[in-house]
């Protein structure tokens, strides 16, 4: 079948099962937008290419399928570098098709030419410059294969205009020929058994669950593992939803703004079992003081994560689902011949440990002033908004966030029960992520409610995608925790720069978020009174045909606690002022 390169690209995208593309056309990608008219794929016209990238990420987060974005050359391409970097950090399968100037013009500083494969080398798993139209199907096949297998990640296919216009034969093969790419799958059983030896002897174990568990769809296996061992666990920012927060064994999120119980349990543990986590500095704090007495089992599909930060006692290089499955099966085999895999002395120690961590959990909850007080008269506490939103949401609701204080409160206080119900920018910490990612999440899961908890600063970076949402009928809901500040930065200046505030004040009233929302075709609400929070949430939840934006005027001076100051040991965790006396007695 003879086609143009552009038609071949569209047909190849259809062939790999793409249902939706987020994009914005321009000169170099024009030929590809023409056959798109006849395609079965849905194209969503964003207002800024960064929006396309984050939307594709949001789509990937909630569906587990690769997100796809299409942009033109030059500025279109550079506008999507941030989402590529974001997806690279958080292992999100993202395929970006970028237009490029004609191959004959490459290297001549042609109009809207940038060396996009060069620029994106450090923020993609791999990238391709297509030079031969006959290679289009093979490259698309490979691009999706690389993006979605092993440790997932973003890829770029740079597509010159003359390649799009050239004539080519289209033929499909499911084969990939990538001699240098062999993602690991099954764990080495010897490593699994060695890991279990440590597990059988652990007296103060903690399971440290990372985003890899979500990526590998390993939550069932994780649940089985916890059921068999009764070990306490923590879920990182990338793993929220991997295990129900309501389970008493779940200690919450570790790290800089993690729960006291999660942080302290890790510090005092004698065995840390890491499933798909990468010992990020926001989790470890000062690395040399991180979990100093713990032996470490590190399960990861990426061999380069092993020993990058902390040298494990037992590395297991495998897909998380397969590795945990192998551990569970082996434990079942061993326990078939005896009552428990643990001897009674170890079990006793583990029970005492469980009691200890549960006590920490009860003694040091996420506290804030006025919590649950009926006579509280102050400004709305941002934490209250998250708690009420969570309470008003069903377990299928998807929560998306921006980056900053609001993100931490959302992660801390939302009660998660299902994987892929949380979409947040972790490794890169990209302000402006929420609105477009929420759009992509809603496109991926149209039957589910999608709430974004966003900051006022973040919202202003990418709010224009609400126009896309209105036009394309993607009814997302945005709760702005409007504290009139770049709050997270302000908190650091408050705590570590003697309250010398430098360039962090925005404004509560400028812009007028309600009018702005309305001008973008959304419904807008404003809430000042803590007593009205729940009724406005209810109103917002009753709107199904339009995007909704709620401007929650929150306490502008509120800080996120607990907090481990940057570079400090996790032992030096600061709890909420109301809990300091209690903590002083504890240690």
């Amino acid at each position, binding site marked *: 079948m003879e086609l143009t390169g552009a038609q071949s690209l569209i047909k190849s995208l259809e062939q790999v099962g793409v249902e939706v593309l987020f994009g914005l056309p321009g000169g170099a990608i024009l030929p590809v937008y023409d056959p798109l008219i006849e395609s079965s794929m849905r194209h969503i016209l964003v207002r800024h290419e960064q929006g396309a990238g984050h939307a594709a990420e949001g789509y990937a987060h909630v569906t587990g399928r690769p997100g796809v974005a299409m942009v033109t050359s030059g500025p279109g391409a550079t506008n999507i570098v941030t989402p590529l970097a974001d997806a690279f950090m958080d292992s999100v399968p993202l395929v970006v098709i970028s237009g490029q100037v004609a191959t004959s013009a490459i290297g001549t500083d042609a109009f809207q030419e940038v060396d996009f494969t060069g620029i994106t*080398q*450090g923020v993609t*798993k*791999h990238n391709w410059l297509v030079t031969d139209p006959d290679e289009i199907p093979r490259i698309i096949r490979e691009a999706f294969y690389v993006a979605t297998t092993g440790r997932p990640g973003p890829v770029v296919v740079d597509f010159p205009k003359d390649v799009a216009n050239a004539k080519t034969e289209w033929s499909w093969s499911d084969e990939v020929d990538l001699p240098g*790419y062999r993602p690991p799958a099954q764990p080495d059983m010897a490593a699994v058994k060695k890991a279990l030896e440590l597990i059988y002897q652990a007296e103060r174990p903690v399971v440290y669950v990372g985003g890899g568990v979500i990526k590998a769809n390993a939550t069932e296996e994780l649940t089985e593992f916890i059921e068999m061992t009764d070990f306490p666990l923590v879920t990182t920012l990338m793993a929220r939803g991997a295990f129900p927060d309501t389970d008493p064994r779940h200690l919450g999120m570790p790290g800089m703004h993690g729960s006291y119980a999660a942080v302290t349990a890790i510090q005092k543990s004698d065995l840390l079992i890491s499933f798909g986590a990468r010992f990020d500095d926001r989790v470890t704090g000062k690395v040399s003081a991180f979990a100093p007495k713990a032996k470490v089992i590190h399960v990861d599909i990426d061999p*380069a994560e092993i020993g990058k930060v902390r040298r494990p006692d037992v590395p297991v290089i495998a897909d998380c689902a397969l590795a945990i499955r192998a551990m569970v099966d082996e434990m079942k085999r061993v326990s078939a011949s005896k009552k428990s895999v643990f001897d009674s002395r170890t079990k006793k120690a583990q029970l005492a440990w469980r009691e200890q961590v549960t006590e920490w959990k009860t003694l040091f909850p996420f506290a804030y002033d006025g919590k649950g007080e009926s006579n509280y008269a102050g400004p709305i506490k941002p934490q209250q908004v998250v708690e009420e939103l969570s309470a008003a949401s069903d377990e299928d609701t998807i929560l998306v966030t921006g980056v900053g204080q609001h993100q931490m409160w959302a992660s801390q206080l939302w009660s998660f029960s299902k994987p892929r119900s949380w979409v947040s920018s972790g490794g890169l910490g990209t302000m402006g992520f929420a609105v477009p990612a929420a759009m992509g999440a809603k496109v991926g899961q149209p039957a589910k409610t999608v709430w974004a908890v966003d900051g006022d600063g973040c919202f202003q970076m990418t709010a224009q995608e609400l126009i896309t949402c209105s036009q394309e009928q993607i009814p997302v809901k945005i709760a702005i925790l409007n504290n009139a500040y770049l709050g997270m930065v302000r908190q650091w200046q408050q705590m570590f720069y003697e309250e010398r505030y430098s360039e962090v004040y925005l404004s509560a009233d400028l812009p007028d978020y309600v009018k702005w929302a309305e001008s973008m075709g959304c419904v807008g609400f404003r809430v000042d009174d803590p007593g009205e929070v729940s009724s406005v949430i209810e109103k917002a939840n009753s709107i199904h045909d339009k995007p909704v934006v709620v401007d929650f005027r929150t306490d502008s001076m509120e800080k996120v606690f607990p907090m481990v100051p940057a570079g400090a040991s996790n032992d030096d965790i600061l709890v909420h002022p109301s809990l300091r006396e209690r903590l002083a007695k504890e240690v």
Partner: protein
Amino acid sequence: MSFTGTQEKQLREEEGTELIRPKSSHHLLAIKVENKFGVLSRVAGLFSRRGFNIVSLAVAPTEDERFSRISIVVDAESAPLEQVVSQLNKLINVVEIKQLHPDDAIEAELLLATLKVDKSSLVGIEKTVTKYKAHILEKNDSLITISCAGTPTKLDELENLLQSYEIVALHRTGQIALPKLEFLAK
């Protein structure tokens, strides 16, 4: 270029100089890569991105035209070898990485130098050429170009000696390496 450790040893013995073991403050990596557009930049880019220092780097085609071999000497101080290798392995176009400990490898490098000559310096230069089994490639009344292959240590010595002449240009290729035969057999 054929230059074995035994030959090197013999040469040294003949000359009465002792064999200086290469310092092992470096790692040797032989990286087989797909012969694709931009692959060298991907490999080099990874080193700078991850903060690993390259001492030297040489690229050449292999016996199979689909692949090239990049020989890299990595500064051992700048990064744990294991991290360097596993990060390199993540590059899609990297097919195979062989690590060689300097003690287990035959290392060689090529040096080219153009020197100013006159009657009085020629004798000395020719002596050095013979001693180091170098070659005179070109010569006229005032200039001479020589080449010499050998271990990096040997070339360091030679380069030092040449400093006493007037050097117009001097280039070294960066070292390449193969496992010693005893390790190849395994």
